[in-house]
């Protein structure tokens, strides 16, 4: 499965949205996800791809992942890091 499809699937499973309603540019706010719900999705993506996102909620006042594309990019980076 490509990364975008996997991320969309995870978000769909954690919300009432269909995968068609989720776009790379969608923000997690747009999708109605609270901070703790976003962490839930982060954990599901980590489990799906067997990776770990190293971040701290206190590094920035912005959320660590604003859009779906941010999650895809971080996943790609983590997978590359794992292989390296």
């Amino acid at each position, binding site marked *: 499965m490509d990364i975008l499809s996997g991320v969309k699937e995870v978000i769909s499973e954690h919300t009432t949205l269909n995968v068609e309603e989720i776009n790379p540019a969608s923000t997690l706010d747009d999708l109605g996800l*609270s901070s703790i719900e976003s962490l839930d999705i982060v954990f599901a993506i980590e489990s799906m791809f067997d990776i770990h996102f190293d971040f701290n909620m206190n590094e920035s006042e912005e959320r660590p992942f604003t859009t779906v594309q941010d999650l895809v990019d971080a996943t790609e980076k983590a997978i590359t890091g794992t292989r390296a």
Partner: protein
Amino acid sequence: MRRVVVTGIGAVTAAGAGCAALWDKVSRGDSLIGPSDTVPGVVAEFSGFEAAAFLEKKIFSTTDRFAQFALIAAREALASAGPPLSAAEADNAAVIIGSAYGGLLTMEGAYARIYADGVSHLHPGVIPKSMMHAAASQISMAYGIRGPSYAMSSACASSAHALGHAFRSIRSGDFNQALVGGVDCAISPANLRAWQSLRVLAPDSCRPFSIGRRGLVIGEGAGVLLLEDFETAHRRGAAIVCELAGYGATSDANNITAVDVRGMARAMQQAMADAGTIPREVAYVNAHGTGTLMNDAAESQAILESFSMAPALPLVSSSKAVVGHTLGAAGAIEAIVTCMAIAARTVPPTANFLGDDPKCGIDCVPNRSLDRSISVALSNSFAFGGTNVSLLFRDFDAAGQGSPAIA
């Protein structure tokens, strides 16, 4: 209405056993945060704690670390409160000990035996050691205290709720005396992993209200206070540390982990109203001050709102930079720090401070204590679940023993 006074205090923290050790570190801003003996990352733990140094074998072999800490703190609280309670007093006194976790270490050890080691039988002590109110029960047993005894649990506000509840109960005459406080010893690999998954733990240290703060640091500890109605304390000749005069408790009804300025501010405002105090009288706020971006900015905003009518803002500091976030014990340990600040006429600093965060805008007494007479102080405790507590302590002499405002 009856007045409620603090006559005894006892603490076990990363500073070791005793309020003197706690105050020495907190008042000097000497942080106890460092690498853990048992888990990855930094914590504030009582390194090298040996129960046998403090408790009889019969007691320490049948208790979890959390009950041991609570027993040691309770012993100090009683010893510092003048003559022992009489049999009649003990018959009616209460023991209320807050905790977020109870005997987590014992329960985790039992789970590891079953799920990892594959054993089929467990030691019969697992339940009596780990149950949430085991600390309260052990204190009741140790001192023959036969009034109500139980735990209160609301994560990081547990012992603040316990203090507020006991305060109201004594004030209304349900009982005359209570050993009240909180304890948590929850520094385990599994629990630290669970906290790490929330991405709120600081990798370096705890820096409340500071620029460059990166989150909270888990600590362990216990705090126990002896609360009494004034008449009882006076009759038996107990020395009075200060008065517990107000309690505010609110819920955000919003989000399980988010912070809410309004809920925090309402708790402080309720505590002041409950004590018949106006904002300008409050000289010091011992903040919840966890060191997360969100808490410290929201708590600062709540303080700014609550004291907007006062000519000057109260001084604010967080003890968590020194003793870490002791979870269910935090409310009691920080209440003790607040009482000691009033008694010592010293505002303890916020340690580990690097510089002002413009999002906060309060004076958090960076790194060095201030000599200051404190007639009234608040101690804040907020918790996941959106539950907020503020307790108001007052210098007893300054308040006057027959003040008509609170008669």
